[in-house]
């Protein structure tokens, strides 16, 4: 933080830093697009879907860090503002933990309770998996069926 003659201590981000941040953000944007859509980066496919998705998210996190620290001025903000931002991230992480718990839950087999799928989406998913095994989608009427979809 820089003090001035009036005693104000608010941080002013220099223009050159804003320009460079904008430049870095542009580069990262092109990197995101290139890694996902251009053949030059096809070797990344060897990492599998988790690898390529992680790269896209890592670039997004890098971009977000630039925006938060420089454009939003968190780097030069007061300690209390930094705590507020940290609390937001912490609460977001708590939400993520709830999501992981949810994604690993199993339907418990209880006597007298028959599994039918607990949501319409699960039921549809089970049905489609069964249709997949039989070589046919359960497409609604009017839906064009492609040759390679099945037909055997």
């Amino acid at each position, binding site marked *: 933080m*820089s003090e*001035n*003659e*009036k005693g*104000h*201590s*608010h941080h*002013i*981000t220099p*223009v050159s830093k*804003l320009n460079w*941040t*904008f430049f870095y*953000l*542009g580069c990262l*944007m092109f990197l*995101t*697009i290139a890694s*996902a*859509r251009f053949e030059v980066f096809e070797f*990344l*496919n060897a990492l599998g*879907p988790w690898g*390529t*998705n992680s790269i*896209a998210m890592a*670039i*997004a996190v890098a*971009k*977000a860090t630039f*925006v*938060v620290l420089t*454009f*939003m001025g968190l780097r030069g*903000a*007061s300690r*209390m*503002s930094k705590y*507020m*931002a940290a*609390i*937001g991230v912490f*609460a*977001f992480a708590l*939400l*993520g933990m709830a*999501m992981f718990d*949810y*994604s690993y839950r199993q339907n418990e087999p209880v006597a007298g309770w028959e599994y039918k799928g607990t949501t319409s*989406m699960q039921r*549809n*998913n089970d049905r489609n998996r069964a249709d997949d095994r039989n070589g046919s*989608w359960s*497409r*609604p*009427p*009017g*839906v*064009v069926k*492609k040759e390679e979809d099945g037909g055997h």
Partner: protein
Amino acid sequence: MAIQAHESNEPEVYFQYEDIDQQQDTYLIGMWAFLAQELLFFGAIFFIYFLYRINYLHDFAQLSGHLNWQLGGLNTAILLASSYFVARAVHRGQTGEMKKQVNWLWATVACAVGFLVIKFFEYKDKIGSGLFPNEHFAQHYHYEANPEVARLFYSLYFVMTGLHGIHVLVGIIIFVVLIRLIKKRSSLITDYIPTELCGLYWHFVDLVWIFLYPLFYLIPAP
């Protein structure tokens, strides 16, 4: 560096604050607290998205191919530029150059409007192709991916980008009001803090799009 107030209006220090710094910090802390709860608001929907994406990895990748990544990329560039313009506007506000600050703010508004115009054409294209997730969805659906997952994907797409679009719209209104207040030399605008607060909101809107773009438009082929 000095923080110059609006020529005629020196910022008043209210009785509950020790000095102007503490007062300004309080405003900023309040804004950060608001953004923290905005993070939770969007975060919950992002985690719903992740949950389904994990379950339907391949279908989501196929469906991502329907979206126009060039238009999405253009919108990303526009929002990044608008974020930069706001940062410059705040800088001008901090150095007391109100006129130049207003110019940067107008540039931001222009970007925001451009974003919404592109989004409008994207929505028009998707709704015209029968991909709006309503009761007629399946009748028009003729793509590779599972139609049930497609309905889910487009529900998430319209909810998440729609909520983001509403935030962009609110941002435009906020900036236009701010510009009017600055031009009228309103007593509400005594320093750069109102611009900084609006700027923080706008950067958050940009942050949300930074994640929405790769999550919807750039899912790599499995």
